């Protein structure tokens, strides 16, 4: 097999029936009024791509485009609702660096806990322990309970654990810049090392300089679908253009609402969403505003 990751027609559907904190009462209400609102939405749809070994893929897109969902599917945290994802190699996810921490355990114990969570053999983890402690550079605190740590120390420890793993495929969410200036410099270098050591990388970031620096391929996601796939510089440029378009249009809609051109039926964002669904024309704010996002 010559690919690291292959996604075919990948779709993830969220059921709105069980969104955050459902209660039996709300379920009953929904039973009585079954047709209120949509029952589900697709966070990802028809996502197809193949990542070859050695490729480093950046995923960009506006908020709510499905970037994090895609990363979660690749990591196996979420099962696809349709389609197939095949991953060829040991995956490490650095989605959030401090997710597995326990406040009562010491730094050292948290290192072992994180290893156990990620399914890394404890003997391997014991070997790596010293280098993790060294890199985190928090001295005597390493044996104190985590609740005594400052947030900076926590971040340093999280970063050290996350990058000490040695995966075939690395999935990164953007929250990597942590700690003070000196540590940030050190961590920037470390990320570069980890990225070049991994067979394949998928990186999600809002920081375009990361995409252009670390990636040799980029995918632009919008509303759960792949809009562009290719050279990072070009994809980033397209993303900038699209977000500029959205910004202009948002301003134009507000302006039109103020002047009474558009009746104020809802908040501007909702009006835009509604118009996109029905295909109604909206002011775009730019004279050549024909480019569709």
């Amino acid at each position, binding site marked *: *097999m010559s690919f690291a990751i292959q996604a075919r027609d990948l*779709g*993830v559907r*969220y*059921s709105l029936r*069980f*969104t*955050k*904190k*459902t*209660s*039996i*009462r709300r*379920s009953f209400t929904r039973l009585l009024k079954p047709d209120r609102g949509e029952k589900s939405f697709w966070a990802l749809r028809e996502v197809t791509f193949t990542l070859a070994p050695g490729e480093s893929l950046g995923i960009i897109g506006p908020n709510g485009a499905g970037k994090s969902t895609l990363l*979660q*599917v690749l*990591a*196996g*945290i*979420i*099962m*696809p*609702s*349709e*389609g*197939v*994802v*095949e*991953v*060829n*190699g*040991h*995956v490490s*996810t650095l*989605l*959030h660096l401090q*997710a*597995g921490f*326990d*406040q*009562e*355990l010491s730094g050292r*114990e948290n290192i*072992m*806990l994180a290893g*156990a*969570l*990620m*399914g890394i053999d*404890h003997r391997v983890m014991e070997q790596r322990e010293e280098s993790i402690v060294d890199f985190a550079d928090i001295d005597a605190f390493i044996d104190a*309970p985590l609740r005594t740590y400052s947030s900076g120390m926590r971040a340093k420890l999280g970063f050290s654990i996350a990058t000490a793993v040695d995966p*075939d495929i690395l999935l990164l969410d953007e929250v990597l810049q942590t700690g003070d200036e000196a540590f940030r410099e050190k961590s920037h270098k470390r990320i570069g090392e980890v990225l070049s050591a991994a067979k394949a990388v998928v990186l999600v970031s809002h920081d375009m300089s990361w995409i252009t620096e670390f990636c040799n391929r980029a995918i632009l996601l919008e509303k759960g679908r792949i809009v562009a796939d290719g050279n990072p510089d070009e994809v980033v440029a397209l993303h900038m253009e699209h977000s500029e378009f959205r910004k202009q249009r948002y301003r134009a809609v507000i302006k039109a609402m103020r002047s009474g051109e558009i009746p104020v039926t809802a908040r501007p964002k909702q009006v835009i969403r509604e118009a996109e669904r029905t295909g109604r024309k909206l002011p775009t704010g730019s004279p050549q505003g024909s480019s569709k996002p």
Partner: protein
Amino acid sequence: MQIATEAPSSFRSSAVRPGAVGLMREALHDVLARRRLIRHLISADIRRKGSDTLLGNVWWVLDPLLQMSVYLILLSVILQRSTPDFPLFLFAAILPWKWFASSINDAVSSVVRQERLIKQVQFPKIVLPVSAVAAEILNLTFGFLIMLGMLVLFFPAHVTLNVAWVPLIALVQFVFTVGLALLVASINVFYRDVGILSGHLIRLWFFLSPTLWSFDSSAGRFGAIEEALGEAGVNILRMNPFAVLLTAYRDAIYGRVNATGDGFTPGQTPDLVALGMLFLFSLGLLVLGTVVFKRVEPAFAKVL
């Protein structure tokens, strides 16, 4: 299907849905392969409970004793009950009950409490309720040691070799508890009502189980219960798994209250047929709990 983080390669498709047997096998693999993770979670749990208290681990000893004292005062002073060696009578049932109640209590929220983790790391979620229940074993062991000391020092007349049945009864209770814990923990992800409701249901269950009373009509208030519920009602009470369990504990540790109500026969062999049937039922519950948990597990990260 292989487990993503353990296997060098993985294949996930919406079309792959393992059946009940596959889910059971997966669950067993999850728990065995992540023994160490369970151990870490247990030690974190124990440390968390002891960390903000002045007396720390002394509470393991003090807590069951205090609880017993509360009921002792309530029942013997206020309600004027006279069962021979009442402290032991109470302790033999309250201790295992407390084990059950706090296990379920911890397990209900074990999954939703780890919301952040579940969304960020792929790991078998089944370790969460399992370690919540397992963490309570240590408490129980301490409690039983105290009770053993109490038995030998203060109530030597009750001591028989039948105390040796206790670990077996505890095993049946453990299987039952894990099964129920898996069920409530997974349902609570979708309906948080379960977490609120379970506290009250467990309290009700406590009073419907022979903790403060027993099925010996001479012991304490059972006569009144019999009168109120009638024979059919009492038979329903006997179907309660904890009627079997707590009676078995009490038989083995305390013995039975005499027909006259002023004496006792020391430790006895518990009703092994009832215990065996309950064990089979508990295994069934464990299978059901595991299959339900594994079936809905993929949805956790989406729903939380």
